[in-house]
């Protein structure tokens, strides 16, 4: 195994780990929502936190799961033509795709979400959706972390495509 491939395996395991952990947070979201329904109809006291908690968990769930989904090749492709290409042709599509599309946009989103979180931290921004008004910077920070994880997994995928492109071998 090449040294690069070793690094990529480490990246894979990071994405795999975060994916497995973050997949479990759907459960507290289910309970938060059910609690809200019961609180409203049975105790006649709707919660003030259910709304914010729900979107924060839902957002965290898929944002931190995006890298895992890339790792398991779960991001949908229209592969009618792609599958007809030889392995090197596919690698070329991916290398170009990562260079022209993936890296620029993900890097811009990392900086964008970092600024968003930093601003939220500095002005102590709170949610305007509910009277609970939780602080927003941690959730905005999660967006940034999600894109960083996605970028890192993207580097592994890119590196592998590059290897295939130059050697014709699939790692």
């Amino acid at each position, binding site marked *: 195994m090449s040294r690069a491939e070793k690094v990529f395996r480490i990246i894979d395991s990071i994405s795999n780990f975060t994916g497995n952990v973050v997949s479990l947070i759907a459960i507290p979201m*289910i309970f938060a929502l059910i609690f809200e329904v019961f609180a409203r109809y049975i105790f006649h006291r709707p919660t003030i936190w259910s709304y914010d908690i*729900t979107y924060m968990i839902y957002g965290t769930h898929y944002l931190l799961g995006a890298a895992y989904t890339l790792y398991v090749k779960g991001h949908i492709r229209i592969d009618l033509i792609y599958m007809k290409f030889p392995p090197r042709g*596919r690698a070329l599509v991916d290398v170009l795709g990562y260079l*022209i*599309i993936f890296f620029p946009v993900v890097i811009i989103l990392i900086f964008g979400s970092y600024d968003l979180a930093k601003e939220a931290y500095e002005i102590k921004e709170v949610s305007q959706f509910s009277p609970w008004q939780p602080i927003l910077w941690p959730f905005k920070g999660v967006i940034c972390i999600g894109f960083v994880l996605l970028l890192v997994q993207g580097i592994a995928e890119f590196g592998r495509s590059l290897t295939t492109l130059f050697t014709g071998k699939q790692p």
Partner: protein
Amino acid sequence: MIEALTNSDYFVLLMFPGVLLSIFLGFPVAFSLMGMSLIFGYVGFGDSVSYMLIRRVWDVANNYILAAVPLFVFMGSMLEASGIASRLYEAMIQWTGRLRGGMAIGTVIMCTIFAAATGIIGASEVVIGLLAIPPMLARKYNKGLICGTICAGGSLGTIIPPSVVIVVYGPAAGLSVGRLLMAAVFPGLLLSSLYIAYILIRCLLRPQDGPGLPAEEVGMPLKEKLALTATSLLPPLFLIFAVMGTILLGWAAPTEAAALGAFGATILTTLYGKMSWQTFKDACINTLRISAMIMLVLTGGTMYTGVFLGMGGGEVTERLLMALNLSPWTMVFLFLLVAFIAGFLLDWISVLLIFVPIFVPLVSKMGFDPIWFSILFLVVIQTSYLTPPMAPAIFYLKGIVPPEIKVTDMFTGVVPYIALQLIGISIIMLFPKIALWLPEVMIGFK
């Protein structure tokens, strides 16, 4: 018509082929949409594009209604693991097996119940297909009929509420998800009735396509039959009530209803003794994979529409269409035709996100009810599951059929069902009340 456009108009319109190029070369749809938004947005807005794109990410990330997506996906994954499908299938066959084409009819009924209890297709089509195909093959059912029935029945999950497709559709069109879910109830049932009617008529005319079962095979005593039906049908009905009932009665928002459904499905799996740590973990990780896929395409799609509309693409499209001087009805037909054709080549979420934000405002402007149009559009999206080469329903089927079923059986098998979809669309066009009646009486919306 050409005079109506300036150079910058042409540039906006290039966005569309740009995205298609990237998608058809095979780069993931989500990143293709995001990347093209960045490239075109940068030309259009300069550095401020960065802020614009991250705002879009934020808008999707804090969207409460979209939290229903992972919940419905989880509910579906759990329900598949519960093993309820096999009991339900057994019960259905006891009732419909004697009829000509009865096993196919039983399959459609089961698909309808499953569709009303879950929000996704795919895995549920696999579960139903694995159950229903071998016995139908053993009875020498026509292979095309088998394939078409499984594909069309499996795709009902996209239109019969609850439906992930509708949850994604609502925000993209700027319409209420609750209202759309209500509006989709009768159109969904209409389609499954059309399927049943088709199977009945076909097997009446050609008994060799779907022979009835001999009496001794479905001769379960009535008492046992009722008991089996009760234990297999009541739990899904309970789930259907937990989700659609609470939405219809206005007790719960769609997101809350989805959580009730997810919880209910988990309880059900536990009661049937199918719950284990592995089952639970698989459901969680499946949910993550599918929702992250959907949400990223959705994020890319809102970026794309944001840039496209921000650069005046909507207005340019409108001017182009006005220059064509079409009647409003022709326009509706044109929009549906575009979506239908796109459905041959693209997946549902791309069709939805690329066209809906442009079509729906135009349709409203022409004086049509956007909910009515949306239901038509959603039926077209369901059809896109059946139209090859990009036909997810056929793709799932390929993974589970025994070798004696050929791909040609699948392609010929779905053709009559695609025709049925078009009949369904025509009926809803002629009788808009099929879609609009339920939301009107339930929430008094006009």
